[in-house]
């Protein structure tokens, strides 16, 4: 789960990580008022959406323009720059802060990470401007190969760390944290020296890094990124931007984090799926998929692609799905208007084929399916499952195996297109 920058900063502030002063607002008037209160020579007006690249992004009025700007300026590197205002702007007066906020609120911000649809800006963060001497990078993440958390820093702030890793790996410093003892001072110092923090500020840097580590561990973060981490003219460290992703598996023990979820940032179909404990991700194709198991669900998308089709979604109904859950998954898949055929691929282990078949038949009758439906069943209670489908009176195409089912679904979608 992701949160907005203003929420991430509020959390970090609680743990003693220095962040700029500021407030989140939802209107131009509030923006002006906050800017007046901050009373700094400049204030920063920052669009709050769950995607990076905001500064270089483009504010546009509608989705057509968003798609156009994305394709010609943001889709990949090397494209010419756009002439639209970006999602992060410096305002010299409170009035200007209000103006900028008004230009953002209610409009779409399209960045290289949002894709062609962009995201609506519903709130902006107004912050004090800072005297930036240097821009650095800092992040905390899980290192899968060691099974430990890793604190990573770089002198190249503001850049994507993947790019730094590729171009100048010697500028990245890492320390691996032993969970038995936590982040130690000597490790934090090593990073600070790597970042060329002046000697008299090393103590502050150690405090900063340890506060960040505590926030990450306490809140069950899966990624915490401060990019840029800035050193001000006075030598102080400040988290100028902050991104936190939380471990979904640990949300059960963090009700305070769960409350920060912004449903506007999520696909409505994905949100509904989550309510029913289904794993669903919307994609761009026209063949809906319903599968049990994440690996098989990915493989099903792959095989559709392999036979010349495009999957409309990833959908894992899980191991112990009930009839209701299957019916709900089916409805969510059908609610995607791009879907022109559905491929149900089930290998029953814990999931029993008869339960699946019952769910599909019930849902089909409830919603009245008008598009071709291909079903491939294998595994536990497969005969009972096939019988339920055969006797349902529904027009269902049988996939003999995975490849046969995928081919038939691709053909059916093509015929319907």
């Amino acid at each position, binding site marked *: 789960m992701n949160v907005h920058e203003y929420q991430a900063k509020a959390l970090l502030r609680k743990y003693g990580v220095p962040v700029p002063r500021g407030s989140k607002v939802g209107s131009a008037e509030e923006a002006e008022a906050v800017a007046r209160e901050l009373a700094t020579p400049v204030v920063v007006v920052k669009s709050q959406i769950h995607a990076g690249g905001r500064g270089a992004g483009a504010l546009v009025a509608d989705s057509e323009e968003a798609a156009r700007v994305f394709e010609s300026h943001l889709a990949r590197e090397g494209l010419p720059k756009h002439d639209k205002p970006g999602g992060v702007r410096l305002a010299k007066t409170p009035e200007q802060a209000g103006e900028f906020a008004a230009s953002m609120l209610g409009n779409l911000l399209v960045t290289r990470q949002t894709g062609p649809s962009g995201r609506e800006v519903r709130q902006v963060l107004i912050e004090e401007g800072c005297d930036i001497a240097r821009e650095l990078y800092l992040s905390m993440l899980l290192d899968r190969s060691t099974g430990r958390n890793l604190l990573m820093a770089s002198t190249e702030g503001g850049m994507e760390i993947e790019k730094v890793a590729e171009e100048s790996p010697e500028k990245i410093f890492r320390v691996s944290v032993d969970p038995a003892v936590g982040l130690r001072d000597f490790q934090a110092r090593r990073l600070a020296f790597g970042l060329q923090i002046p000697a008299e500020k090393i103590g502050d840097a150690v405090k900063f890094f340890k506060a960040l580590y505590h926030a990450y561990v306490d809140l069950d973060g899966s990624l915490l990124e401060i990019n840029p981490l800035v050193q001000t003219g006075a030598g102080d460290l400040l988290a100028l931007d902050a991104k936190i992703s939380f471990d979904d598996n640990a949300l059960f023990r963090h009700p305070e984090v769960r409350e920060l979820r912004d449903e506007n940032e999520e696909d409505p179909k994905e949100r509904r799926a989550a309510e029913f404990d289904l794993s669903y991700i919307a994609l761009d194709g026209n063949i809906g998929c319903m599968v049990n198991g994440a*690996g*098989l669900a990915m493989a099903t998308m792959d095989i559709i692609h392999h036979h010349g089709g495009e999957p409309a979604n990833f959908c894992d109904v899980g191991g112990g799905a009930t009839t209701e859950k299957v019916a709900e998954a089916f409805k969510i898949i059908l609610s995607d208007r791009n879907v022109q055929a559905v491929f149900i691929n089930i290998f029953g*282990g814990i999931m029993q084929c008869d339960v699946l078949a019952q769910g599909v038949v019930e849902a089909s009758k409830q919603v009245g399916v008008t598009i071709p439906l291909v079903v491939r069943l294998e595994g536990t209670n497969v005969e009972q499952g096939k019988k339920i489908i055969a006797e349902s009176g529904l027009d269902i195409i049988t996939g003999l195996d995975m490849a046969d089912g*995928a081919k038939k679904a691709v053909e059916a979608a093509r015929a319907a297109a």
Partner: protein
Amino acid sequence: MSILLSAKSRVVTQGLGGTGKFHLKGCREYGTQMVAAVRPGKGGSEWEGVPIYDTVADAVEKQGVDVSVIYVPPPGAADAIMEAADAGIPLIVCITEGIPAADMVEVKRFLDSSGSRLIGPNCPGIITPGQAKVGIMPGYIHQPGTVGVISRSGTLTYEAVHQLTQLGVGQSTCIGIGGDPIIGTGFVDALALYNEDPGTEAVIMIGEIGGNAEQEAAAWIKENMNKPVAAFIAGKTAPPGKRMGHAGAIISGGKGTAEEKIEALEGAGIKVAPSPAELGVTLVAAMKAA
């Protein structure tokens, strides 16, 4: 022959809820020695003839168990793994899905100083066809034989096994290593065991997007493996930044893509199935070529 699990294995079930009971029965019907269960506070009672103990240590002492299978729900699963390791159980199989990564960081550290091997979590378990099954896979699709199967995914493993069995190719031992970012036994650990096992002639390895375990396995195979290996990577069509069901299946910052993994595997001389419908035939082709 087989690795890790045989007809002699004596298994304790930790977490005797609905799921645990259902699969305890299923494993017993398959022929596995399901000789004990642990339910704190219910020690001294029994369920369907299986004695229940308060602690894993008791089950070890009274029943001589050497394998534990864990169905304990996520909040208590890490603790259950550590209890099994503390009791000296050599093989711990954790089926539980949804354990917080931070808990697994601690588990991994704890296991470092124990003699236990963990399989999973978030996995279907392990089966040595015809001898014993510990986990949730449908037993009947398997057939005893000489091909080792290792996979990060559950149902995709069933697909691979089913295809092999349909081709008349039996399996020595099949291991679902799990779909989480932190797991106990990885590809390389399992490959090393198959390499040493006289009962295994070839291995099929099923990976997916996220992390770089497949690349590490490819490098290891190139250096050490003396048996043919076939592979498949799920998630070619997965978009970056989205978690595809498994917590571990996410392409982050352009890393962990299917293309990178396939390139590494092919670079190590491993045959990679072009589609998930060709898992079985790709393995057979790899065996013939060897």
